[in-house]
């Protein structure tokens, strides 16, 4: 029982990281209708920015904030330079998807050029200690991931539901043409969306680094698959879905190998099976909207 509790909490902690990555994916999907395959690589890149700042002697917390700011700028620049010139993603979704796949390779290559392929060591954000809760040792890392996810979720809620900026972003996501007609500078809001997504991705990258123990150019490639599984389960266009989906995927991937030995050697298998099952049974996901076309 204690073992199970511990694994469950590890799962929720890991799931919090998938949820963070998923939130970034959903923000971009809602505003452009396109899945950003480069989300994980952009997160990896800005995690390297965190590492670089930290390496200069700056405290970890400040380095993370600096990395988030860096991620925001990188995301915004990528939108302006690589995504926006391709054209309206609602009219040419495939072209934009291909661009994000190209970005996946390009950002990865850029990181290898700048930082090399040797793994960098990274101080865990919340230290490497753990705390005993009812006899169950829980790593501060996992608690930290949950708390940070909670904070990010709250921030997203406030921004999207309570501010004019959030209202405008939701308007762009729902109907970008009409958003332009009511005076919203649509390209600028899309740029902000890419910036937000990359900033949240930075945090996901930092936590993934402490789970894997090192930072390299392939940091986020597994996490991205789990992030995809999370938003497939939760619904591509639902922020709540990304959080719930992320947590469920985290728990599944940490508990399943205990009961089904085969999964131990195939950590990705539960994620792929989940994606397949959701697409077969409930393609819109738990919280996603079914596509309704009104004429």
């Amino acid at each position, binding site marked *: 029982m204690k073992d199970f509790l511990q694994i469950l909490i590890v799962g929720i902690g890991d799931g919090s990281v998938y949820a963070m990555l998923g939130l970034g994916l959903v923000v971009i999907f809602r505003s452009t209708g396109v899945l950003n395959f480069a989300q994980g690589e952009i997160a990896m890149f800005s995690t390297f920015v965190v590492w670089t700042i930290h390496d200069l002697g700056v405290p970890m917390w400040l380095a993370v904030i600096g990395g988030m700011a860096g991620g925001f700028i990188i995301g915004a620049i990528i939108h302006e330079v690589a995504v926006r010139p391709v054209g309206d993603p609602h009219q040419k979704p495939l072209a934009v998807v291909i661009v994000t796949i190209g970005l996946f390779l390009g950002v990865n290559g850029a990181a290898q050029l700048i930082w090399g392929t040797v793994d960098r060591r990274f101080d865990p954000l919340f230290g490497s200690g753990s705390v005993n809760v009812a006899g169950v040792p829980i790593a501060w890392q996992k608690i930290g991931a949950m708390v940070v996810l909670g904070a990010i979720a709250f921030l997203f809620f406030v921004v999207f539901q309570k501010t*004019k900026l959030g209202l405008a972003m939701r*308007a762009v996501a729902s109907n970008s043409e009409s958003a*332009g*007609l*009511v*005076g919203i500078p649509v390209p600028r809001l899309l740029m902000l969306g890419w910036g937000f997504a990359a900033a949240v991705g930075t945090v996901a990258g930092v936590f993934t680094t402490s789970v894997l123990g090192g930072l390299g150019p392939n940091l986020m490639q597994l996490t991205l698959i789990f992030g995809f599984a999370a938003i497939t389960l939760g619904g591509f266009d639902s922020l709540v879905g990304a959080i719930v989906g992320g947590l469920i995927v985290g728990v599944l991937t940490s508990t399943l190998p205990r009961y089904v030995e085969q999964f131990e050697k195939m950590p990705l298998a539960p994620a792929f099976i989940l994606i397949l099952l959701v697409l077969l049974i409930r393609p819109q996901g738990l919280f996603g909207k079914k596509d309704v076309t009104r004429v």
Partner: protein
Amino acid sequence: MAGDEATSGTEQKGGPASAAPLLEVDGLRAGYGIVEVLFGIDLRVDHNETVVVLGANGAGKTTTLRAVSGMIASTGSVRFEGASVSGKRPDQLLKLGIAHVPQGRGTIGALTVEENLRIGAYNRKDADVAADIDRWYEQFPRLGERKGQLAGSMSGGEQQMLAIARALMSRPKLLLLDEPSMGLAPLVTQEVFDQLRQITENSATSVLLVEQNANLALEFASRAYVLEAGQIVASGAAADLQGDPAIQKAYLGL
């Protein structure tokens, strides 16, 4: 801000037409890709005037509005209050005072009725936004009853009224209306036009309307243009066109 005087001042009504027209379009050409739709359109909307462009399906009515509001590229000259606005984006034109209710209404389905109205005031910084929302609830009581409902779940007529109210939230000087009758039952269409008449009578907002429903449109507008295959083939006072046998035959089913 732009348009502040639009709803407040009715003193312009019937005022001197000495200044430049509100909207002046000369030799407007536009299309989609290699397909040309408009072959040099000239039209004019004066201050405090309602103008209709009549035309059949495919004549270029929607394209005309889309070119004027900067949704598609065009050549020729579009001047607003005497200044050229060619090449500007819709959000930039809105700041100058041109609001566009697009074909198919263009309500933002994932936002509530109230959020749609609030987003309509996106560019306004004044303190009267809430009061304006109440004013439109008063004009369109059914929107007030449904303020918390998602716009996408409302009927066609309600969405049309919401789209008009949302456009007016920006306090425009010129309202572009693309076939408000489309897809609506005759009674609902009548209601929409009744509301429009009340709104234009009580404000200084000018309207450029494109319509197929010639009967209603000619009663609503003071001046009219007839668009055929991308060219203006007739124009004049709405009352004159109503009595023109050729127009009656082609558009009024008489």
